[in-house]
């Protein structure tokens, strides 16, 4: 007999018509799947009762695929065919992946996104992620006793269109209908029911196994707006383990370790760290393969001391994100803790100290994103309670626009517009008889195309020849509920149309995206400085060229000493103009002008004399 869940009054589903929806937290280190059961969001465990699925996929030569704990076990024996943290490769080109040379995989630089050569053939990050998603889909269908209607999958707030599209593609490949993609910090806020609470600013502090993300969200009228993001893509619980590991080696004065011993100690280090979250001290006793004994006690004091700089590494970007958002800690209504590493009391204290309030941590920080995603999935699948007929809206994080003459950006959809959205704008031709128009779609807050990210490019052809400015081309930007963009250009008189789905030119690093977001808050001063510098450089180049050409014409007017002085001044200016010290460029330009003053005067005299020689005064027009 089928097992039933409690429905909202009047909402009992007809038999066989249950709408099963799940939320999936597709994480870098671990993946979770959650659903709403009898009105309550719960994470679905595997058969052994484990909630987490390690985001690890291992390929064998015979084509079999292991996912999760099974794959994790193969990491040490077959690192080349065991892919961990595939999320870092989603929608990325080879050069976007940090420290690619340290990774054990065989990368192929395919069009757009990297691919990996494995024993089972060439796999794209999308296919690898799909294996993880298939595994959680199977778990969900076994748990819910039916086929899934759909899923909400979470992505980091800073994921760009390429990474979001890759995530959607992976879900489709896994046979999952994506109801929508949801930003991870937004999902965490939903899990705490903040979407139903009063409006305000919330901080989401996400310290996972290997990554740290801080997001500042503003909730208003049911819309979560991402005001700022920041973080450190190489900071996580693993770093804390490593500090403990190093401390053990130091304290026990161990000889260089074998691979097994190192692994054993790493495990003990992690256990000690986890124990410290509950107790004031943790004993570490290990017998190593080398015959050496370790018998130490790690206290909270020592742990705090050795990890102080790591905690600071999380606090610094947090302060910066607040600054970027133009906010102070007093503006923050609540802080949501996400990620297993936020269980550490040191982190809890540091966050409480910074924000002058206790963070929200009564939900399991490892599950909170999946729980929020499940809540959203349940609503989207149509299992709504009365009065719950709202739909959470997201916003686009960076403005979308296109390139106009002179390399300038015309923004069509401003950042923080709620999605889905469609906006149209009319453009015209620049030249007489122009029959085609290239449309370059860009994303970013800056004024120049070169400072923004190019997403796609396409051409509208078949514009009837007419004078410049007469053609009317309507360009429509449309962003669907997942934040994916399509652009249509239509010539109004003939109806000729060209259209592109933005499958963006994959490849922008986390840091670059974070930098673009940061730029959007602070570019004004920076741009002014850069423009002034650029102008000074152009002016310096002009001065050097003018001087050199004068030297060629009239070298005879200068003594060797004078010539050497001018040459030295040119060299000096050439050296400083490459740098970014505008003051030094100005000074070197003044020095060169001073050095050539006398020379310029003589040249003037000479040319006057030449002009006058052999002529009568009346022939000279003054």
């Amino acid at each position, binding site marked *: 007999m089928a097992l039933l869940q409690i429905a909202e*009054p009047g909402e009992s589903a007809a038999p066989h018509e249950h709408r099963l929806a799940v939320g999936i937290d597709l994480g870098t280190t671990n993946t979770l799947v959650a659903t709403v059961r009898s009105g309550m969001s719960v994470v679905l465990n595997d058969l052994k009762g484990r909630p987490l699925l390690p985001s690890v996929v291992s390929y064998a030569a015979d084509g079999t695929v292991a996912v999760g704990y099974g794959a994790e076990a193969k990491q040490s024996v077959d690192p080349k065919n065991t892919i961990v943290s595939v999320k870092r490769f989603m929608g990325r080109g080879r050069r976007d992946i940090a420290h690619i040379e340290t990774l054990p995989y065989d990368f192929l630089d395919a069009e757009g996104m990297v691919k990996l050569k494995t024993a089972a053939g060439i796999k794209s990050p999308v296919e690898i992620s799909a294996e993880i998603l298939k595994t959680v889909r199977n778990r969900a269908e076994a748990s819910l006793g039916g086929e899934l209607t759909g899923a909400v999958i979470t992505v980091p707030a800073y994921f760009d269109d390429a990474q979001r599209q890759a995530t959607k593609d992976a879900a489709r490949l896994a046979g999952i209908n994506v109801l929508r993609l949801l930003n991870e910090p937004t999902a965490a806020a939903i899990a705490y029911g903040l979407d139903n609470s009063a409006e305000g600013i919330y901080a989401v502090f996400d310290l996972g196994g290997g990554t740290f993300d801080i997001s500042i969200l503003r909730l208003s009228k049911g819309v979560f707006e991402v005001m700022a993001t920041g973080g450190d893509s190489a900071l996580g619980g693993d770093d804390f383990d490593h500090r403990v590991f190093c401390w053990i080696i130091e304290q026990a004065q161990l000889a260089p370790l074998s691979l097994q011993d190192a692994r054993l100690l790493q495990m003990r280090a992690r256990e000690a760290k986890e124990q410290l979250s509950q107790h004031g001290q943790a004993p570490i006793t290990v017998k190593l393969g080398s015959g050496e004994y370790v018998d130490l006690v790690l206290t909270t004091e020592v742990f705090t001391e050795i990890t102080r700089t790591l905690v600071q590494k999380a606090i610094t970007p947090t302060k910066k994100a607040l600054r970027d958002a133009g906010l102070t800690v007093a503006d923050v209504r609540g802080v949501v803790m996400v990620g297993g590493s936020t269980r550490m009391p040191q982190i809890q204290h540091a966050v409480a100290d910074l924000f002058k309030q206790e963070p929200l941590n009564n939900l399991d920080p490892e599950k909170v994103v999946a729980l929020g995603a499940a809540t959203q999935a349940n609503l989207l699948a149509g299992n709504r309670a009365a009065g719950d007929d709202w739909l959470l809206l997201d916003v686009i994080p960076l403005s979308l626009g296109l390139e106009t003459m002179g390399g300038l950006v015309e923004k069509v959809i401003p950042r923080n517009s709620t999605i889905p959205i469609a906006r149209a704008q009319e453009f015209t031709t620049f030249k007489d008889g122009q029959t085609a128009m290239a449309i370059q779609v860009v994303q970013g807050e800056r004024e120049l195309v070169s400072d923004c990210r190019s997403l796609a490019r396409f051409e509208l052809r078949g514009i009837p020849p007419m004078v410049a400015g007469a053609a009317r081309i309507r360009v429509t930007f449309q962003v669907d509920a997942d934040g994916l963009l399509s652009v249509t250009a239509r010539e109004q008189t003939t109806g000729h149309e060209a259209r592109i789905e933005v499958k963006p030119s994959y490849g922008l690093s986390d840091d670059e995206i974070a930098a673009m977001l940061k730029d959007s808050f602070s570019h004004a001063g920076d741009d002014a400085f850069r423009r002034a510098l650029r102008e000074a450089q152009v002016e310096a180049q002009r001065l050097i060229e003018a001087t050199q050409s004068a030297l060629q014409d009239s070298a005879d007017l200068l003594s060797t000493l004078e010539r050497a002085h001018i040459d030295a001044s040119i060299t000096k200016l050439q050296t400083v103009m490459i740098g970014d010290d505008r003051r030094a460029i100005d000074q070197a330009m003044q020095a060169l002008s001073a050095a050539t003053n006398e020379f310029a005067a003589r040249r003037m005299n000479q040319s006057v004399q030449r002009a006058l020689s052999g002529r009568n005064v009346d022939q000279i027009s003054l």
Partner: protein
Amino acid sequence: MSACTTPTADSAVMPEAPPASWQGSESASPVTLSARAADHIAKYIAKRGKGIGIRLGVRTSGCSGMAYKLEFADAANPEDIEFLSHGVKVLVDPKSLPYLAGTELDYAREGLNEGFKFNNPNVKDACGCGESFNT
């Protein structure tokens, strides 16, 4: 899911309402909750933040004649029959009661799946998955 038969016309005819003496008595409740089911229901109601209890019922939809109704109850209807089982208020509408008399609602775990299960002695046959049944 297995295929189901179409409902027969006469299964839609509801029997007479049960005697009113059943109302409110815990000891002789015709519909009970297992301790586990009551625990889960209490937890879900607490989490939901509102609700006076749970409503059980049957309706004449479904492929094998009738289907169970299992819903949160925010208010009792005047005709409802109320029981108390392990501290949880159970509401049943009088038309459903004959089909449910003697039923125990249990909370079960089958593999990864978990949820509520009607142990109903009135069921003569059910469709393969048990979501709908005949009495």
